[in-house]
């Protein structure tokens, strides 16, 4: 593979573009940031400096506009990194220009999280297609190191291993190689859980579901608050895509609930539409931030006093155990807890473990459990499925999955009895359990 020294970032004014530029420059590459205008690219450069907390990282960067500089920059580049809007037509138009200008052995990568890599690859000539693949960084890329690498069928197979190696050793990424299937690994598994929680919230309420599937289940943030952060429009795009283009055991979990459809239609997209909100709405009241919560039935936002969630005994007890590092004992409580709340929480969490590990193997999204573990752990900051299975015990996990009426993944069925499934020697499992 060509040694990667010079990188061009297309769409460098966006968050992903600027963040990607920061990642490549931090690894020592000279990066040319391109946008509609050089001024916009300059804004991307400044944003990259802010991410690196360094002005001198800018010494490795140049800026330019598509109109004036694309062809010359692409001609001199070892890696062309596309971070344009998630619109296939726009991307194709740019790839048409890239294919004409690029060196025959330069790498072309897209940061796309949702579009088909195969379709994008077809926008250029044979050489373009051979050197084209997805490098899906997560937002913000300077903080979140989980990264998906997605070759398509026509990608030169000899490129994949050196690209993965380079991303890990030089750019500090934790890489998962995925097949070119809708939403790849992280978003396929992650948004299945998030959408399921959104569906359940229609009956049980937003605040209640965020409490039931809260940090104590192995995540940094409550699930629907996470969707508010990501944007409900992005959520819709991902689940609609998976729902339309896959058929798996959890197909129904990808159906966007009607009330969320309405929220998106009315421009309630989450944190980015501050005043309108999403699942939650932050309101300033006498100088303080107050979080109002959506009532899915009416579309109204209710004051904290009206959506107070009654504490559930096992969740409170688990939080106390996590707080002092007794994670396994906490997960034992999770298995043993009685009552409807425990049933809901177990269905979602064992659903996550089962669905994630079922994406492993022949014809599936990833080859090994380690791949899905890595992207859930380092892309989503969720407890990787095998960390949960290890903490609960493999046999118990299998029994619980069966009890929930879910498919038992082969990874678990064939797991050795005497050693943990999660095998990343330097990763602290405890970091995934919050209280």
């Amino acid at each position, binding site marked *: 593979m060509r040694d990667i020294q010079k990188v061009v970032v297309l769409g460098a004014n966006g968050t992903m573009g600027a963040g990607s530029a920061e990642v490549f420059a931090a690894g020592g590459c000279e990066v040319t940031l391109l946008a509609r205008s050089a001024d916009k690219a300059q804004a991307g450069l400044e944003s990259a400096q802010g991410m690196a907390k*360094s002005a*001198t990282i800018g010494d490795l960067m140049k800026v330019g506009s598509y109109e004036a500089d694309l062809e010359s920059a692409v001609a001199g580049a070892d890696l062309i990194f596309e971070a344009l809007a998630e619109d296939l037509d726009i991307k194709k138009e740019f790839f048409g220009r890239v294919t004409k200008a690029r060196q025959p052995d330069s790498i072309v990568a897209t940061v796309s999280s949702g579009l088909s890599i195969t379709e994008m690859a077809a926008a250029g000539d044979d050489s373009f297609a051979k050197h084209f693949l997805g490098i899906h960084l997560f937002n913000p890329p300077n903080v979140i*190191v989980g990264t998906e690498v997605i070759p398509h069928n026509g990608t030169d197979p000899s490129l994949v291993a050196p690209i993965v190696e380079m991303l890990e050793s030089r750019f*500090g990424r934790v890489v998962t190689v995925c097949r070119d299937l809708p939403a790849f690994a992280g978003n396929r598994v992650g948004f299945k859980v998030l959408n399921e929680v959104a569906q359940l919230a229609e009956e049980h309420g937003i605040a209640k579901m965020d409490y039931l599937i809260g940090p104590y289940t192995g995540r940094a943030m409550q699930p629907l608050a996470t969707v508010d952060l990501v944007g409900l429009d992005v959520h819709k795009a991902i689940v609609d895509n998976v729902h339309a283009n896959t058929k798996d055991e959890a197909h129904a979990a990808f159906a966007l609930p009607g009330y969320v459809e309405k929220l998106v239609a009315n421009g309630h997209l989450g944190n980015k539409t501050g005043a309108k909100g999403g699942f939650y709405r932050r309101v300033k009241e006498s100088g303080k931030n107050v979080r109002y919560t959506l009532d899915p039935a009416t579309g109204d936002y209710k004051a904290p006093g009206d959506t107070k969630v009654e504490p559930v005994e096992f969740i409170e007890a688990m939080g106390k155990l996590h707080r002092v*590092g007794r994670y396994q004992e906490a997960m034992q409580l999770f298995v043993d807890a009685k009552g409807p709340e425990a049933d809901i929480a177990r269905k979602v969490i064992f659903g996550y473990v089962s669905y994630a590990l079922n994406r492993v193997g022949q014809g599936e999204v990833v080859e090994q459990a380690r791949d899905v573990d890595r992207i859930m752990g380092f892309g989503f900051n969720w407890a990787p499925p095998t960390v949960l299975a290890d903490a609960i015990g493999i046999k118990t996990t299998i029994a619980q999955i069966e009890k929930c009426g879910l498919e038992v993944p082969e990874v678990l069925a064939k797991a050795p009895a005497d050693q943990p499934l999660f095998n990343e020697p330097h990763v*602290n499992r405890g970091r995934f359990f919050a*209280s």
Partner: protein
Amino acid sequence: MAEPVYVLGGYQTDFARNWTKENKHIMAMIREAVEGGLSETGIDPESIEVGHVGNFAAELYSMQGHLGAFLVDANPAFSGLPTARHEAACASGSIALLAASAEIEAGRYDTAMVVGVEQMKTVDPKTGGDYLGTAAWYEREAEGVDFPFPKLFGRLGDEYDKRYGLKDEHLAQISAVNYSNAKRNPLAQTRSWYMTEEHANSTDKFNSVIGGRIKVSDCSQVTDGAVALFLASRKGAEKYASQRGIDVDSLPRILGWGHRTAPIEFTTKVAESADNEYVLPHTRRAIVDAFERAGLSGVDDVDAIETHDCFTTSEYMAIDHFGLTKPGESWKAVEEGVIEIGGKTPINPSGGLIGAGHPVGATGCRQLLDAHKQVQGNAGDYQVDNAKTIATLNIGGSGTTSCCFIVGH
């Protein structure tokens, strides 16, 4: 003849974690370190006879004292275990190690556990800076001062400048080397941060002055971290070795130690050393004591150093105090690449306090664990080739309490 003290191994938590964001109590840190250590070494918890904790200021950061007692909570087998907590500011971890090794040397116990721990992200940086001020003479040197310690270690640089001359670009290079080493260390706090020599040389809103000549890039980090270590007598080490079918002499030992305390106030220290070629002669003495006890002729017998670099000036001081250069000529070792991985005597292959992080009470233990990893060839990407003998230097206060260990076979 005192009993030899063997280092069986241990465990370090990921120093990039923010345990407050995880909503964790300091107990979780102690438990993860102990569980990790037991699992890493395969030591039977029943075989541990005594426990020591190194911690600086949990009373301030977490409103919690009596940390020795928390070891007992870390494993059911520890109920009744004799334990204690030790404090000497940033040298607390080394003091806990000295206490444990003294007991082994005296023949009281055969296997000891030492945990260094500090949870610092419970408070905002300014409050944390004020707490750290209690490692100096608070009323005279820290009260009402924003970030007193960078200012004190800035004065250490000024003292060098006055006596020998000091260029800030040498400090910038020390910072860049530590950050670069940290990129190789999967448990280092700054492993994914951006840093270059150019950045360390720059002064702007991204690399602002914290106090005197000390900029952000000259500082070690505010870190949550815990480290567990297991020490043993010859008898304890033989038992450990025979259970694993290995030769007891393949286990590293603490070959020598030094421990000196200077007057706490910085002004008194430099006044006392005015006519000495070493700016911190008691620190120099602690190093020489350790060399002598280990039977080493000097720094040439050492393959790498894990030193206290709470600021770049403290590492600059360590270079000549270890004897890598003549007093006042530390810059030569910096310029010649002596201190880099691959250099003659690499300093802080782990990234040190600047790169790996500085959970105050855990740092001395982290240094000894890294020394153990190096001499056992287990340091992964930050392994120093043929590392047989490693020195550590851990300092509390403004060069006040100095502890040095030599680890080897």
